[in-house]
């Protein structure tokens, strides 16, 4: 009997750390959760992240009207939206730059034929919560607002030199119910112009 108890205890001791390990994720970014928010678009309409929680993925893009890097991606962003909107992927643009007005955002979105809403993040509150640093910078979330991907749209400002279409690949993997293979990337961009503290 004592032997049996000892065996069970030993087994429990061996199993316990494994169970604990399963709750530990070696890549904290994978489990990092984004916060819900409500911001208004350039027509004054409110949009909450929770409005899109039933989508297969939510693409949150920090963009700018005056940044040459972000502007290099205008056509690409519009095209990616067109290619994925019917696949149950939601897109939200966020402008957190202090010097870019709602009127400017409206004109910029219209001129570039953005089909997705572009929301004004006054006082860069959401940029701070998401720790977004540059434009363009993309977050792809699931319905639980877990961050599945964070980084660039692709690997070159110059269309002719793109080798990796990171955002498209991420969305394709999500649509195919696969794990996102490259959840974090980096690229040069314009610093988000924040309000003074």
């Amino acid at each position: 009997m004592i032997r049996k108890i000892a065996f069970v205890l030993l087994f429990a001791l061996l199993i316990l750390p494994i169970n604990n390990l399963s709750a530990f994720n070696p890549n904290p970014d994978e489990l990092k959760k984004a916060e819900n928010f409500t911001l208004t678009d350039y027509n004054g309409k409110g949009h909450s992240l929770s409005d899109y929680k039933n989508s297969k993925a939510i693409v949150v893009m920090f963009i700018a009207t005056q940044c040459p890097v972000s502007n290099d991606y205008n056509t690409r962003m519009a095209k990616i939206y067109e290619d994925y909107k019917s696949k149950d992927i939601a897109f939200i643009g966020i402008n957190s730059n202090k010097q870019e007005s709602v009127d400017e955002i409206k004109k910029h979105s219209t001129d570039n034929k953005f089909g997705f809403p572009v929301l004004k993040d006054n006082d860069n509150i959401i940029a701070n919560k998401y720790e977004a640093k540059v434009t363009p910078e993309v977050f792809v979330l699931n319905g639980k607002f877990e961050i599945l991907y964070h980084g660039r749209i692709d690997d070159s400002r110059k269309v002719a030199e793109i080798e990796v279409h990171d955002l498209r690949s991420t969305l394709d993997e999500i649509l195919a119910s696969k794990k996102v293979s490259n959840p974090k990337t980096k690229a040069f961009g314009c610093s988000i112009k924040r309000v003074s503290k």
Partner: protein
Amino acid sequence: MKPFFVILLFSFLILIGCKGEEPLNDSIIIEVKTAGEKELSDLINNRNGKYLFLNIWATWCLPCVEEFPDIVKLSVNYKSDKIDFASLSIDYIEDKENKVIPFLTKMNTTFSHFINGFKKDEALINFINKEWSGAVPLTVIYDSSGKQVAMLEGAHTYDEFADKLNTLIK
């Protein structure tokens, strides 16, 4: 009489020559070298007992352009101290002649200048510091052994840079 006219004509031609449009800083010839991993490693590691203040910038980046005059001022005021100053532009190489060099010439700089020669942005970002988001401007300071001792993301003022340098070289 003839020599008189020759001298007059010669003087006239010299005067005309002098009236041409003068370059902004004709005494300064800015050289911008392409820096890939090898060139940057050499710059960082061959210190000759000096610190390195490396500013990463672009002509399309307004905070970078606004910050640059303070860096020029620092490079003058800290010249006697053991600090080398260098800039690394992340503009496209094809913009070197028409954008980068004219800006640096206007800034009247005397330190070393480089332009990004890495094939991919992420390679340079991770080479400089894996914690760097890719936002510019970025200033990194290396000690005399080539060890990175400061990474300052975003634009900074003259005083902020000076405080940092004073702390490091005291």
